[in-house]
Structure formats: C-alpha cells, structure tokens
C-alpha cells in the first residue's frame, strides 16, 4: 500500500452562497491527479483547504502526512504551489525572487533553476511587471520546481498559455514524475492536458466530488454506442445507460459500464449497433456533470 501524498476525508466548507460537501480525495505518492470541474465548482477552494490557507469546517485533511491546517508550515516546506491568480512582485526581478527562494529553502537547486531559465526562455533581469502571462506562469513554476518539492499543487497551470509554452510546462511536470516519491495535483479546464498526463482523474461540480478514478478505467468504461433503431427501440429502463440522443431512427447511447452485456442489451432492446466509440475526457466529464445535476434535481 503506497503512502498517500494527499488525503481529504469528508471535508466540508460552508460559505453564504456556496457549500463544499463530503469531499473525499486520495492521491497516492508518485502519481498525478487531474482535478476537473466547471468554474465555481469548488476546485480552488479545495486546493486552498489542502494547503491550509482555508480552514475546513468539517472533515480531516492530511498532506504529506501532516494534518492541515494545524501543521501547514511543516507541509509547506515540501509543497510547491502555483495558482493562476498568483502574482510575483512587479517591481522586482525574477532573479530577486530566485534569491528569495534560495534564502528560504535549503533544497533550492541552483543548477536546476539555471536549466529551467534556459528551457523556459526566461530573462532573470526582467522586472516581473513587464512579463507576459505565459512568462509569469513559467516563472512561478520555476520558483516552485527548483526547490524540488515532494508535492506540486497547481491551480490551472496551463490556462492562457500558448501551445509552445504549454508543451514546455507539461514536459517539466513529467520530469517531476521521474522521482516516484513526488506527486502532482493539478486543476485544469484543459481536458487534453489532464487526459495526457494524469494517472487519476477527479471530477467536481457544485461543491461535490462526482467521480474519482484512475484514467484508464474512465476511458475504458465509457463508450458511445451509435445505433439504428429497429421498431420500438427505447433505452428507458436499460441499466448502464447514462444518456440517449436520438433523431428519428438514428441515435447514440452513452454508457459508463461498457461491456459485452451492455451491447447485447441494447441490441435486444431493438437497436442495431453501427459503431462503438471511445469518448474523450471532455465528453466523459460533461456526461458526468449532466447526470449528477439530474440526480440532484430530478
């Protein structure tokens, strides 16, 4: 049983217009978790609770073995946090920030920092108020990566980045994974990125975790079955069908428990399967959200 880098158990937080409820989340050491959800779903709140910046109202939070928020300082020594709404000091240079980090963190790796400067094409002498969005994100990432944290927590790390910058960032993140004791948790709207590098994916919507599974299982279980209806085909009551779309005789059903049984049942119900398609993470995510919202408000 691998150690857990992050464990949230029954975590809840109440605000006037928003409630985080029953958040259960586990990230094993050495793995990458993608955290996906619409705006306002509670991703940033969950992440800040994880870092001890917000105190949960209910539940237990443990990060790298430390209880949060009580032991947040001990945890923060080993956590690198980059958030999309974080800003460095505009009047100072990247070099100044690097010196600041080096003075605080004993694990600061000067050589690695120099490498990252080159790879990210950043100029250390530039004042931070004059850099572009992409350069700022890369600078923040450099400051977090060069101290080799055991846990990287990233809130929208690739949002607003051009494709080249995105590729550079993903490449660096994957290098972190070379060390099996280091883990990454990142939230993103960019389901392509999540699909590519995540080992585990967690969907969140309206303050609740909808699903948390390893990626391959997600991608294996979900399918779109295109059909041509024969006679009185109806998908009502068919178990395992999440969604049905239909226009005349043609349509498609979406299932989240794909197996030969499901295919058989659809056929028996009176449809000829014309294609079985895998679904992208984006499609799976949307289907999940739609279903969970229907369950809450039937």
């Amino acid at each position, binding site marked *: 049983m691998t150690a857990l880098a992050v464990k949230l158990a029954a975590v809840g937080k109440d605000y006037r217009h928003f409630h985080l409820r029953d958040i259960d989340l586990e990230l094993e050491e*050495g*793995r*990458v978790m993608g955290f996906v959800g619409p705006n306002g779903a509670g991703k940033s709140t969950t992440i800040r609770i994880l870092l001890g910046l917000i105190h949960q109202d209910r539940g237990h939070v443990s990060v790298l073995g430390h209880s949060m928020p009580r032991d947040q300082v001990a945890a923060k020594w080993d956590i690198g946090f980059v958030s999309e709404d974080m800003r460095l000091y505009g009047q100072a240079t990247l070099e100044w920030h690097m010196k600041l980090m080096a003075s605080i963190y004993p694990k600061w790796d000067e050589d690695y920092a120099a490498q990252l400067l080159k790879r990210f094409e950043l100029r250390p002498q530039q004042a931070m108020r004059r850099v572009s969005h992409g350069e700022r994100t890369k600078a923040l990432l450099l400051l977090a990566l060069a101290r080799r944290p055991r846990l990287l927590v990233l809130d929208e790390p690739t949002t607003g980045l051009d494709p080249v910058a995105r590729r550079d960032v*993903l*490449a660096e993140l*994957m*290098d972190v*994974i*070379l060390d*099996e004791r280091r883990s990454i948790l990142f939230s993103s709207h960019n389901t*392509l990125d999540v*699909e*590519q*590098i*995540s*080992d*585990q994916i967690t969907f969140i919507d309206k303050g609740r975790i909808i699903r948390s599974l*390893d*990626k*391959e299982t997600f*991608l294996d279980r979900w399918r779109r079955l295109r059909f041509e209806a024969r006679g009185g085909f109806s998908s009502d009551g068919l178990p395992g069908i999440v969604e049905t779309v239909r226009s005349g005789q043609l349509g498609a059903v979406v299932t989240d428990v794909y197996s030969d049984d499901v295919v058989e049942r659809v056929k028996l119900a009176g449809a000829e399967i014309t294609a079985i398609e*895998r679904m992208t993470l984006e499609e799976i995510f949307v289907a999940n959200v739609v279903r969970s919202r229907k369950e809450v408000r039937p």
Partner: protein
Amino acid sequence: MHSELVISQSDGRPMYQQVMDQIRQKIAVGDWPGGHELPSIRALAASVKVSVITVKRAYMELEREGLIVTRQGRGSFVADDANIGPKLQREELQHHLEEAVKRARLLGMDLSELLDLVRWVRAQALKDER
C-alpha cells in the same frame, strides 16, 4: 533515445495502444532486439509525456502478449525469442491479409479473382521500384 516514441492525441486509438504499437514496431524492425532492456516505466512516461499509468498498462499488455518480460526489481526486457522481429512482421501481414479477404468477400470476389488482384498489385510495386 526514446523520444522517438510520439503520442498523438488526434489519433483515435487509446494512448496505451499507441505506446504498445510503437514499442512493437521497435521490436519488429530490430531496434530493440531480444533481451534488450526497456526503459523504466517512469522514464518512458517522462520522455513521451504521458501518464505513468498509461505506460504501465502498455507494458502489462505487451507482457500478456509475450513480447516483453518483466523481472521483479530488475526491469522489463524484450522477450528472448530470437525470431520475434520477423514473427511480429508476419503477424502484421496476416492482419492486413485478413482485412483484404474480408473486403474481397464483401465485394463478392472469389479466391482466384483475389489472387489475380494480388499478382497485379505486386507487379505494379515491382515496376515502381525500378
């Protein structure tokens, strides 16, 4: 070395299958001969920029097919079967032929018509080579 493996997200096939196919290719053409040590799962994941779990699955499936062997604590190796390259290529050819036979039947061709077509195609190919 292993940055020659490229994963495309616009490719319809699942990522683990792309990894498997490219490893199979490397074995088939002899780049990775029998006994060659495969990169560690993490190293390959990092260089290809895909999740560890995807590479792990690819390795597992390849092991199930008998193409690679994983020795506990020592890594994964290409199976020692000396013939593996040619064997893979032959399997690949067989897949293509199965496809061709299927289509021929759909078109209503019989065996002799199919063989005629094969001869014609081969003649064209030899002509192009000169």
